Structures are given as C-alpha cells and as structure tokens.
C-alpha cells in the first residue's frame, strides 16, 4: 500500500542554520500539507499546497518557512534560519483531492532538534 515517506527521521541543527525537510507524497495525490507538533502540544497546521502554490498557511508559517515541489515526487519544507522554538516533530501529509471529509495520509514525521 502506498505510503508517505519523510527524510530524515531526525535532524539536529544549530540555531540560525537552514534545514530542509523532505517528503515524498503518495504518487497520484494532488494536495500536500505540513503540520508540526511541539513536544507535549497539539499537532498544528502549517501550510497546504496545491497546483504548485500555497493554498493556505497558518500564522506560524512566517517568512522563514517556505515549501517547494521541486520535481514530480518530492515536497520540501525549508526553514531558513532555525530558532530554538522550531524544535518539533514535522509531519507531511497528502491527499488525492480536497472535498470535505477527505482523508489525509501522513508520513512518519521528522524530529527537528535545534540546539
């Protein structure tokens, strides 16, 4: 059964460094999402992406964040200058379409630790 994959599983970086988190959505899916979960807190929506552009972003998704679908298979989240508070688990998700009630398929997550 097709799955969403994410790499790396754990990323450790120094404050101020740039990181790129990678995701491979399910191949025929058209909608892509990033969520994050700070330890002990809720899973929060960051951004949704469709047709090569952002369709919605949250207040968390400020100018230091960007997303890209550089080819037909990858979907990336870039954090330009990491802060300590960016330490979290980042989940990628994809869905075939986006009517109400649609299921989003999640990856296993990337744990980002900013030192």
């Amino acid at each position, binding site marked *: 059964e097709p*799955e*969403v994959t994410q790499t790396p599983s754990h990323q450790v970086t120094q404050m101020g460094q740039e990181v790129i988190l990678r995701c491979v959505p399910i191949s025929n899916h058209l*909608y892509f*999402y990033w*969520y994050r979960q700070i330890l*002990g*807190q*809720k*899973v*929060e*929506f960051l951004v*949704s992406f*469709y047709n090569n552009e952002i*369709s*919605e972003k949250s207040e968390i998704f400020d100018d230091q964040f960007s997303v890209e679908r550089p080819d037909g298979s990858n979907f990336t989240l870039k954090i330009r200058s990491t802060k300590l508070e960016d330490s979290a688990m980042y*989940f990628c998700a994809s869905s075939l379409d*986006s*009517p*109400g*009630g*649609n*299921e*989003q*398929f*999640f*990856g*296993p*997550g990337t744990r980002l630790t900013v030192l």
Partner: protein
Amino acid sequence: AQTVTQSQPEMSVQEAETVTLSCTYDTSESDYYLFWYKQPPSRQMILVIRQEAYKQQNATENRFSVNFQKAAKSFSLKISDSQLGDAAMYFCAYQTSTSGTYKYIFGTGTRLKVLA
C-alpha cells in the same frame, strides 16, 4: 476559531475489554467532519474513523465506533475487544476550510496502553 480538546492524556485498557476516548470541540459551523487518527509508536498516523456532522448515525468501523453528540459537541471513540495492536496515540481532529483546501485541527492526543 475551532478548537479540539482531548482531556485524557493517557488511558489504559485490559486486552479484550472496551475503552472510550473522549473528544470535545468548539465550532460555529453547522456542517463539518470529525476524524480519529491512530499513531502507533514510531509510525505514521492512520485514519481510524470519520463522521460527517450532518449524519445523525454514528460511524462504525469494525471494533471502532463513535458516539457523536452534535449538540454537546462531543465525539468520543469506543474501541471494543481491545487488542495489543491498538496501543497507540489517538488524535481527534476537526476538518475545516477557509480557502477551499481542507485542513485538520487536532487535539493533544490520548495515549492508549493495552494491558495483556
């Protein structure tokens, strides 16, 4: 804005017994969708069950069922005949859209332990 609350950080259940996980939410919308996702240790979240708010009948998927109380804004998950493989983090989620693309609003999760 919509919110989702899971008041039980952790629950335990004996194998073969029944357990109910609680979820409440707040919204001013009349039509929406609610979901339960399961996240086994070190694995991805997978959909357990979904409920359409305009349907009064509670959703059921094998051993999993929901008790959807729209007026009370409550959406609990019942797991019958619990199995060791049910041990996981369970997330309640509300689905909403402001731009035509639907996103989830999650609760903080309930960690379910299944005792042999």
